[in-house]
């Protein structure tokens, strides 16, 4: 399937002529001497789109520095650190933050552990039907949003739910998982699993099967092959999946809201409450910005620790830049 570079001349296919046209346009708008800037040009659309979000943070940062005046329900004219002081002094925020961070770690670990074998089998299986089954099973629940899936879980985990009917049938005591921290974690892992598999699969595809086979034929035990061959080679995918799952869990709102029964709030719940229940945009903004800083710091540490290898950058190769 690899396209070959044809000689220029008559009889070039339409597709290539179109490319010639594009090439000419590029030459005009982006001459070769601009080449060193090409990566920045490539980044521009994504940076601008994300810029919309960053622009939204500016009025919120401003709001976070103004306490609410309950006589007019407007934020104060003068800057003050009252909202941040509230965050620091109310122990409840510490409790919620800790709960959220714990969830981030547990969900990330559990999701990766469940996703890795799935992705591996999907990539390595010789059976086309199995690969198709695994792919379809991944995509179908994907189409159902978080809210509906949460209600599905409540039916399963509820006091009179499927799980208890099953336990009852087996003569075991009933569980009451619904509306607990565990329920929130279960819901989150299930929600994150397809994302993680889809991030891992390309990375695993990139590991040539021959390397695995060679390792095995040299007498390496499966775990050793996993640890010394698969894990390092698939690292970009693992780190990508880990960052995605961790940050999304950290900022999740719907799962704790629906599956937590009200007593298992995450930070995003507190942000929501501040904005909507209390009508205090300043406090909500302070909380949200705090959470963003924590999430960004964690991402920064991971990236610093694993270097740029996380994004499939091939170490030591200085590209055209």
């Amino acid at each position, binding site marked *: 399937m690899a396209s070959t570079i044809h000689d220029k001349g008559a009889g070039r296919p339409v597709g290539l002529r179109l490319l010639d046209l594009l090439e000419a346009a590029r030459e005009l708008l982006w001459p070769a001497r601009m080449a060193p800037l090409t990566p920045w040009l490539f980044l521009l*659309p994504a940076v601008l789109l994300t810029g919309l979000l960053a622009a939204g943070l500016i009025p*919120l940062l401003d709001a976070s520095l103004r306490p609410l005046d309950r006589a007019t329900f407007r934020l104060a004219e003068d800057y003050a650190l009252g909202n941040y002081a509230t965050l620091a002094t109310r122990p409840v925020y510490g409790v919620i933050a800790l709960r959220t961070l714990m969830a981030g770690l547990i969900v990330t670990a559990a999701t990766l552990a469940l996703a890795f*074998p799935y992705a591996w089998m999907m990539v390595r299986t010789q059976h086309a039907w199995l690969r198709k089954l695994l792919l379809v099973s991944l*995509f179908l629940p994907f189409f159902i949003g978080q809210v509906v899936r949460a209600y*599905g879980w409540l039916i399963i985990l509820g006091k009179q739910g*499927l799980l208890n009917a099953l336990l009852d049938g087996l003569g075991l005591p009933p569980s009451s998982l619904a509306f607990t921290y565990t329920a929130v974690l279960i819901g989150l892992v299930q929600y994150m699993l397809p994302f993680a598999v889809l991030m891992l699969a390309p990375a695993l595809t*990139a590991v040539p099967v021959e390397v695995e086979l060679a390792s095995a034929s040299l007498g390496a035990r499966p775990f050793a092959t996993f640890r010394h061959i698969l894990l390092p080679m698939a690292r970009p995918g693992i780190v*990508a999946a880990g960052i995605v799952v961790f940050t999304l869990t950290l*900022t999740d709102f719907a799962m704790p809201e629906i599956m937590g029964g009200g007593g298992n709030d995450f930070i995003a719940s507190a942000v929501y409450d501040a904005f909507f229940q209390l009508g205090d945009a300043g406090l909500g903004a302070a909380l949200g910005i705090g959470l963003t800083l924590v999430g960004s710091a964690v991402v920064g540490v991971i*990236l610093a620790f694993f270097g740029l290898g996380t994004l499939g950058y091939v170490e030591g190769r200085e590209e055209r830049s």
Partner: protein
Amino acid sequence: MTGSRKAAWIIGAIVAFDLLFLALPTLVVLVASFTPGTIITFPPPGFSLRWYGNLLQARDFADALWRSLQVGLVCTALSLPAGTLAALALARFRLRFATGLQIYLLLPFTIPLVVSGVGLMLVFGRLGWLGAVWPVGVAACVINLPFMIWAVAASVNHLDPDLENAAANCGAPPVHSFFTVTLPAVAPGILTGALIMFILAINEFLVSLMLTDARTVTLPVLVYNAIRSIITPDLAAVSVVYVILAVAAIWLLDRLVGLDIFLKSKQG
């Protein structure tokens, strides 16, 4: 040999668990949608298409579904070029401030959606964009863009740099080698990313809640608002509509390019 058999057994068990784990809530909701009663229960006390009838009659629902599809299309159309190009830039070039750039581009995931919603409402309000459907698509693209970037970046591993270099050495100019070598190589990532973006866009409710009004409400927002007062099985019926859409999309994709495209580039 026993070691690898044990390993195969463990992997098989985990994958079997995964399959059940992934399917269970969906199945429960699908079956529950056929209840004749007024509340989501499992197993349903009987079989009825009552809630589907309700959906078919609800003009609001059809309008909202149509808007959600528009949102999905706008989001995917924007993220395809933006995400792919950004991923290539990040993965193929050693950039200054790369870590800072990564953190910036991950803002959509590190900012809680409630904050993104309020922030985008203020920005879009200033820009005079509110009141239309397309800005909701822009928002869906913005808040999920890292998925597109990372999906493509992860598959850059497929891209053998020697191939690109070879193309360049053969005198292939940049646009040619971009379209004939680079893009086909990362196609699985692009497709995966595009599908994720579309799915997330048609399911997005928290940010959309801030950006829509009664005339531009999307389906997930409609559902979200409805369940704030009463939870009826039409929620489940809506999901079935989505699953039917999903099955159709997956079938079509399989027929057109084959599902393996998600795993293997067509190159080489």
